[in-house]
């Protein structure tokens, strides 16, 4: 049961072949079995989940007279940087180790309203800052394909939970690749929507102009189902865009004939693992064989993307994380003697080294005398990157590339070298800077670890990338492979 997709379970539910309680119990049984090895979760919400499952079953019993949502009764795992009313929300940080939000993030509200069952909160790199989930103050999460490998990050808990069938669906957040890179490392599907497509209200902000919530799922159909529920304008998020939400399932058409597919030259060169390159090249051939028109495109400004990102993201982070000061919520240092030592000690004790590094970088970038040289210049380069994408996506309908330059690396392999860790987001970061939608899906294996294919689309053209990804999925078997946990 736990290994099935949401759309498969939905069919069983409406045909009364199973119940939400049964599914939820199966998922918790799976968690019980696998969690020792994987450690995808920070908090389990078993009691409330079963209550939600019973409520879902009551709704299902009245269907089809009263129609139900495709998410009714389906267990969903929520990344632990999205606020859940009454449920611990730690952001995998010591500073929020005791934080119970008084409200639900809009995405959580929408999932609940659709009848989803919230089974728990998944591990992440502290405040979503990292690419391996090793920067978690909670614990390390392991890759279900190889317990010595990282699951990627920062949504490593969600991706590992989906890969290990510890959840049917999961939410992730993506600031520089945090949905797509762990999806690639864990061999699952991860979609980062266009900036503004999904409300950020209740997502604990890392970098506000880059953050976006999206689904992590077992296949493309489930990603479309989750998008149907999560997308849309939210009055509580001024940056969410007022565009109608299409039925993303209708975009799942097995046909890429005449579609113009651009292979990004800069992401097929140096620094990319040869086997990853080969798998992506093969994916390009698959698209060509299916009738797509393959084009090689160049985005010269990519060279500056990582540097630009680490100025903009850290600048915004330094501001967003100011509020964790021990005054109102979260953990306050016991060593506080007065206001200054309260601030200093709370933040010194509460934040991990990567978060501190980024706060310092960002504070520096915004400081008087440096603002123009760093932050302002980064904004200008960001515009160049956007323009490069606009040009490429004028000539192409979608762009493809590896999601990450390598397969999942070993635990501890990059923790001592932040710069090499940063470079594992080289293919995903430019997409956030441009605010575009992109998806990662499995396209092969290397050393028994999954390889991810990234498909990038025009702003608010999620339907096109879903269609391309769905066609690829229907014509390949990579998504059917499951890790042996």
């Amino acid at each position, binding site marked *: 049961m736990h290994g099935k997709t949401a759309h498969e379970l939905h069919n069983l539910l409406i045909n009364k072949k199973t119940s939400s309680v049964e599914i939820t119990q199966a998922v918790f049984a799976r968690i019980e079995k696998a969690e020792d090895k994987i450690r995808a979760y920070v908090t389990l919400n078993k009691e409330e989940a079963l209550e939600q499952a019973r409520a879902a079953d009551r709704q299902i019993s009245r269907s089809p007279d009263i129609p139900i949502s495709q998410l009714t009764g389906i267990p969903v795992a929520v990344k632990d940087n999205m606020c859940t009313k009454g449920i611990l929300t730690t952001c995998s940080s010591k500073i929020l180790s005791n934080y119970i939000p008084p*409200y639900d993030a809009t995405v959580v509200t929408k999932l609940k309203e659709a009848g989803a069952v919230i089974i728990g909160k998944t591990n992440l790199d502290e405040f979503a800052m990292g690419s391996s989930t090793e920067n978690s103050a909670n614990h390390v999460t392991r890759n279900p394909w190889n317990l010595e490998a990282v699951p990627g990050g920062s949504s490593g808990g969600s991706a590992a939970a989906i890969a290990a069938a510890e959840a049917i669906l999961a939410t992730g957040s993506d600031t520089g690749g945090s949905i797509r890179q762990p999806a690639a490392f864990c061999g699952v599907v991860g979609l980062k929507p266009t900036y503004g497509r999904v409300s*950020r209200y209740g997502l604990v902000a890392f970098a506000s*102009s880059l953050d976006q919530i999206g689904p992590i799922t077992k296949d493309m159909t489930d990603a479309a189902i989750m998008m149907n529920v999560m997308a849309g304008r939210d009055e509580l*998020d001024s940056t969410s865009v007022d565009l109608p939400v299409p039925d993303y399932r209708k975009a799942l058409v097995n046909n890429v004939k005449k579609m113009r597919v651009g292979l990004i030259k800069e992401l097929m060169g140096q620094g990319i693992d040869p086997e990853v390159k080969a798998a992506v090249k093969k994916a390009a051939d698959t698209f060509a064989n299916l009738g797509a028109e393959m084009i090689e495109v160049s985005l010269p400004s990519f060279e500056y993307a990582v540097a630009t990102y680490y100025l903009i993201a850290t600048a915004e982070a330094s501001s967003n994380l*100011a*509020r964790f000061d021990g*005054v109102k919520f979260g953990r306050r240092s016991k060593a506080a003697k007065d*206001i200054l030592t309260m601030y200093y000690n709370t933040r010194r004790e509460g934040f991990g080294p990567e978060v501190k590094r980024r706060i310092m970088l960002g504070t520096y970038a*915004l400081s008087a005398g440096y603002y123009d040289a760093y932050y302002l210049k980064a904004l200008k380069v960001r515009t160049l990157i956007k323009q490069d994408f606009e040009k490429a996506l004028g000539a192409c309908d979608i762009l493809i590339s590896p999601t990450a330059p390598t397969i999942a690396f070993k635990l501890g392999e990059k923790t001592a070298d932040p710069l090499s860790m940063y470079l594992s987001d080289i293919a995903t970061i430019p997409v956030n800077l441009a605010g575009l939608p992109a998806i990662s899906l499995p396209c092969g294996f290397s050393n028994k670890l999954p390889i991810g294919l990234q498909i990038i689309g025009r702003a608010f053209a999620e339907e096109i990338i879903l269609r391309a990804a769905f066609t690829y999925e229907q014509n390949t078997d990579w998504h059917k492979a499951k890790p042996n946990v």
Partner: protein
Amino acid sequence: MKYETVIGLETHAQLLTQSKMFCACPTKFGAPPNTNICPICTGQPGSLPVTNKKAVELAIETAIALNCKIEPSSIFARKHYFYPDLPKDYQISQYELPLATKGHLEIEVDGQKKRIGITRVHLEEDAGKLVHVGAALPGRQAGRIMGSEESLVDYNRTGTPLMEIVSEPDLRSPKEAAVYMQTLANLLQYIGVCDARMEEGSLRCDANISIRPVGSKEFGVKTEVKNMNSFKAVDKALLAEEKRHIEVVEEGGRIIQETRFFDDITETTTGMRGKEYAHDYRYFPEPDLVPLEPESEWVAEIRKSLGELPAARKERFVGDLGLQPEIAGLLVASKSTADFLEETVKLYPKATAIANWLVGDIAAFLNENKKSFSQLELTPAQLAEILKLIEDGTLSNKIAKTVLLEVLKTGKQVKDVIAESGLTQISNENELNKIIQEVIKNNPKQVEQFKAGKETVMMFLVGQVMKLSKGRANPALANQLLKKNLAS
């Protein structure tokens, strides 16, 4: 040497919105601590601001009234500093691109009109309130955060919409600065965007002041004066600071650029110590909000709805209605008073009489009862009715005042008040004659004096008639009948 003083003012006005700048919490003053709060105004992780459209509208109204250019696109920015009353540890404000720029306000000092430039008008959010409990450190003021045993924070005020209005350094004396503040306050009240009470903090200002030798083109070193909590305090604080600047310079010293705190009791300013280092607020564009781009149709609508502004209205009151400039000035200080006058004039054409009642008895009543004009229990029709009754002799001025007071207190109809208390003037000769006979009988000595030619006694006797009639006797008729009676 002769010096010229140069002053510029930064004014913060609390906008009269129902809800806060970036969330739906009420802005009501005086609620129990931390009751008007939500995840947004307490900066809970994950919460996001949403701009209050009404606040934008009020700021645009102000900008139009101050002859500003409304910027087609302005942006919010984050201003960072750590303090417990600031939940996010940054304030959402406007920095590089404000809502409106390049305006002016006309003030009148000693009969001279002067145009004061307005640099900018922008929107921002207020901070919360701290209460420090416990003893102070030796040598430090109690009630400060340093040294207190415990500090409590109330976030009710957090996120209240504030509008900052920055003037050009066009003011040349403390008096001009005080007049500017008063004129600005009147304008804000008049257009209904702020109740503009400096004493209550709904209008606050900081002043930048410097001196330079008369004729010099360059500015002197400025100081920033804070804590001026009334219009009078603006005048006094700047007089004190002006004097200090001159003294320092005359003694061969140099003014240091710093922030100074005005003490209302000693009427001096002191440097604010403890501000050891200059703040770097690390402003950057607020990524959680989209640029503020008011549609030109909307701005045009606001401009239209704003109607006639106080300066123009005052001119019209003087020119068309023949009011004294001073009285016209008092009337246009409040839109509702000016409107009331115009409504009443439609029913009773003598504007001066109406104006006198408005700035006289009615203003006095409101003052005494600490009521605002909007709480007035009197309609223009009622005032016109009373004035007509005076004119046709039904009410004496004195009775009319009593009637007015009763209407102000109870809101009853003028006719009912008069009927219930029998307050009409006695103009019936028989009735009056009876009273007069009584007065003659009771005051034989004065009657003798009158008959002996001491005519001034007449005043006393009329007074007695008024007294006996409880003020209801028609004084002119009483005078006439009294003379008749005494002559017989």
